[in-house]
């Protein structure tokens, strides 16, 4: 029972990381109608930046996190400007291939700078752990902070898109760029901002992920990226609560599947569930039906 509780918490915590990454996927998809496959690698860059900040430049953890966010935000804007903006009117296949190219580029840059050997990441959010039930249940500070960060981010983004002028403009652009432009909204700047926010969140996800799973290498972002993409589709791409629910469910399925079904099949289970959900509800759990324009 207590063992189950512990798996549950780990699942929610891992799911929270997926949810934060999924948000980035979802927001970018919503506004640019493209799958930014390089998103997972931005996570990896964020993790490396914070790693260097601690290891080589001896910055305090909070400064390391801020640095990672700043670098990833800038990187997100740069990627959009250089790689995707010129393809605004290109076919989605060209954009997809470009995104995969950017993903490889980032991984290879990381390989060049930091080498292929895994780095052992030192947790940035380690404040000890809480022991309950006579020492049978340990809850680490990483678990707490990851879940808390997820909740805060979800609330903040919901308020941002629902209440602020900029957030509403973002929703307008994701619905109809031409109409948004006619309102006086600078569509390019809005898309840029969306990439910036998504990439900033990726940095946070990178720090949290590596704080819990401390092996860092150039491919660290790939698998979580793909799973978060799965989570975004699972919950309904383009929807904030969808990313949250999709992420958490995915984390739970993965951890519980590995614990109770099979360690090897844990990942396969995740994708099997995705396929079933998409067969039953093609728009994902919370996906909105797209209104056809007359």
């Amino acid at each position, binding site marked *: 029972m207590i063992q189950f509780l512990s798996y549950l918490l780990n699942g929610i915590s891992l799911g929270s990381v997926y949810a934060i990454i999924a948000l980035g996927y979802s927001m970018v998809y919503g506004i640019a109608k493209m799958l930014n496959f390089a998103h997972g690698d931005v996570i990896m860059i964020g993790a490396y930046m914070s790693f260097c900040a601690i290891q080589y430049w001896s910055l305090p953890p909070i400064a390391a996190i801020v640095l990672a966010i700043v670098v990833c935000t800038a990187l997100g804007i740069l990627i959009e400007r250089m790689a995707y903006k010129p393809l605004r009117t290109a076919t989605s296949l060209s954009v997809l291939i470009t995104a995969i190219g950017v993903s490889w580029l980032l991984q290879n840059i990381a390989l060049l700078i930091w080498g292929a050997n895994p780095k052992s990441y030192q947790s940035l959010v380690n404040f000890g752990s809480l022991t309950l039930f006579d020492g049978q249940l340990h809850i680490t500070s990483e678990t707490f902070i990851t879940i808390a960060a997820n909740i805060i981010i979800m609330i903040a983004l919901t308020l941002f898109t629902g209440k602020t002028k900029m957030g509403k403009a973002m929703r307008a652009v994701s619905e109809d760029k031409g109409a948004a432009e*006619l309102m006086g909204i600078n569509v390019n700047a809005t898309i840029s901002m969306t990439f910036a926010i998504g990439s900033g969140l990726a940095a946070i996800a990178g720090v949290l992920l590596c704080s819990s799973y401390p092996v860092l290498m150039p491919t660290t972002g790939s698998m979580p990226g793909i799973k978060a993409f799965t989570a975004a589709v699972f919950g309904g791409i383009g929807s904030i609560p969808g990313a949250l629910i999709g992420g958490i469910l995915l984390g739970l399925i993965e951890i519980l599947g590995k614990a109770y079904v099979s360690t090897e099949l844990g990942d396969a289970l995740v994708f099997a569930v995705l396929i079933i959900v998409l067969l039953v509800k093609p728009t994902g759990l919370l996906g*909105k039906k797209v209104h056809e324009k007359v």
Partner: protein
Amino acid sequence: MSLLKVEDLHVYYGSIHAIKGVSFEVNEGEIVTLIGANGAGKSTTLNTVAGLMKPRSGAVTFDGKAVAGVPASKIVPQGMALCPEGRRVFQQMTVRENLEMGGYTRPASEISESLDDVFTRFPRLKERHRQIAGTLSGGEQQMLAMGRALMSKPKLLMLDEPSMGLAPILVEQIFDIVQELHRAGTTILLVEQNAQMALSIADRAYVLETGNIVKEGIADDLMHDDDVRKAYLG
């Protein structure tokens, strides 16, 4: 005095030459209508003037400033609004949010006053201000699209087929509103399939045919012009 002046405008879609040297002007305080058959280039002309498309060549002067090729988001604050073909309200946003987007370029302090103005003109929108726009009826969506365009307090309001797909009684209502807006001082450039209606409220009119202006004149005269009657008034 001319508020909008378009000179020798050429617009392409790829290699398709859609607008082939169109010139016209709209004077302050006028209602001008652009009529023409399907595919004549009416929407392309409006979209280019509004800055959604870039012309290959030609000049667009709005309120004394050259705006050809300037993006729409920079033209809107100068006092031009386009209520586009097919309404294009933000389906997943509420009525109120749609209107707020219409006032995007105006200072926050002026928004509530403009909202009140729009709600006075369109009481239906006030009743439904929290409703998701996608669930409004076609007529209500048209009112929302017009209200949204008015939120920017435009000097020039361009309407692209506001009567499209509406029942006759609603068409009357929309045209009444256009006339009211005009009386309240807004200059109007109206594109319509419903040439009869458009000519009946316009001061002047231009007839567009496959990318060229083939006729222009006082709306009343065109209404009695034999060619126009045959081609557009059935």
